[in-house]
């Protein structure tokens, strides 16, 4: 049986753990707010971009640029995998790994080779350890991502696609659907499938733009940017998801600490009472013997 001081020490330890998880919870909450704000300020850009691209796509042939053309034989694809730089965020990272693994196993069964690029320390370590074909990794990138960094990533992919080194590019990131819901999502980046222009308010007649250079030339310029927009969006969503997941995990941990402290305190009190009773019995017994 654990002695009184043992239990007391344990209670102290759990309380300290709770301090840490509580602090991490608050830090995650603050970072989440920042990440969410970034996501919101990206929205006007993304919306406008999709609008213009959709409009252009509806006016041109779908095979004017190799980035739009599906390859007939697919033997090697690339995957851009997002995960967190840190752990302690519940099942956030492992969800992303499982999603990727499932997909990669499927592709491999179909005879397709996969080259992997990871964003996030966790992903890099995970896939390196398991011997996947890691062609690149980016760490500590969240929080200071800008479009020119994204541009570098996407340019490499586009170059490899155009040079016929790969026949498709996909990415997996965690989509932020709400505080309690983050879903690992697979997105096809190349070949590009332009967004379909949504007919707003059913206006029917599309605006006929005067284009400079021509619609085709513009499309060619916009296509790599479209990929950038998607990757940038993935960065923001993944970052927000990570913080939300960590916040939830730490909230849970703090609550578990509370429960643990409560039940340990019960055990402690019981043990203390037992000790007092035993001592009392001793004294009473001793007194009775003296009276004899």
């Amino acid at each position, binding site marked *: 049986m654990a002695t009184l001081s043992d239990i007391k020490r344990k209670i102290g330890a759990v309380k300290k753990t709770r301090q840490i998880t509580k602090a991490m919870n608050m830090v995650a909450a603050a970072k989440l707010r920042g990440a969410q704000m*970034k996501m919101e*300020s*990206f929205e*006007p*850009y993304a919306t*406008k*971009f999709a609008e*213009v691209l959709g409009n*252009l796509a509806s006016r041109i042939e779908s095979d004017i640029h190799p980035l739009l053309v599906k390859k007939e034989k697919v033997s090697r694809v690339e995957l851009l995998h997002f995960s967190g730089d840190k752990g302690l965020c519940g099942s956030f990272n492992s969800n992303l790994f499982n999603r990727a693994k499932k997909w990669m196993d499927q592709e491999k069964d179909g005879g397709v080779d996969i080259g992997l690029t990871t964003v996030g320390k966790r992903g890099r370590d995970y896939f390196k350890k398991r011997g996947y074909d890691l062609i690149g990794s*980016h*760490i*500590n*990138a969240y929080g200071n991502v*800008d*479009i*020119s*960094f994204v*541009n*570098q*990533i996407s340019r490499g992919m586009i170059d490899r696609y155009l040079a016929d080194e790969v026949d498709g590019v996909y990415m997996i990131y965690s989509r932020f659907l709400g505080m309690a819901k983050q879903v690992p999502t697979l997105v096809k980046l190349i070949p590009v499938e332009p967004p379909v222009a949504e007919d707003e308010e059913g206006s029917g007649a599309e*605006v*006929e*733009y*005067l*284009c*400079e*250079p021509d*619609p085709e*030339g*513009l499309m060619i*310029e*916009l296509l790599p*940017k479209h990929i950038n*927009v998607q990757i*940038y969006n993935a960065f923001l969503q993944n970052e927000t998801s990570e913080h939300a997941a960590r916040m939830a995990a730490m909230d849970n941990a703090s609550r578990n600490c509370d429960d643990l402290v409560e039940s340990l305190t019960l055990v402690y009190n019981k043990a203390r009472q037992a000790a007092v009773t035993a001592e009392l019995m001793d004294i009473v017994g001793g007194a009775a013997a003296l009276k004899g």
Partner: protein
Amino acid sequence: MGKLHLEIVTPEKVMVSQEVDIVVAPGTMGEFGILEGHVPFLSGIEPGELRFSSGNQTERFLVTTGFSEVSDNQVSILVDAAEKATEIDLERARKAVERAKERLSLDRGKEDVDFLRAEAALKRAIVRIRISEKIN
């Protein structure tokens, strides 16, 4: 005086959203100006100087690549980055160049440095310096 609504949007934020009289932007096929009543118009944007006037006030911005859309007296400029010309910090840009160069000179196999990022930072700083020197 005709009024146009100008919006300069970057992925980070909406930089400018205001009524203006004229916008002059660096298009892929040369500089172009937009006044009220322009036909719907799409054009790529090259890195360079964008200026717009409202009344007798003219403001200058440095923009990087992107595109512009004009419809219904609404001008949207979507670029990777934009900065007020007067707010370019030359000193900072020069320092950024040095920092990036230093990181790029490290051993590629060993150090835990993201070379792609350093390279991107270097390019960005160089563009900034070039445009800032051209404008001032």
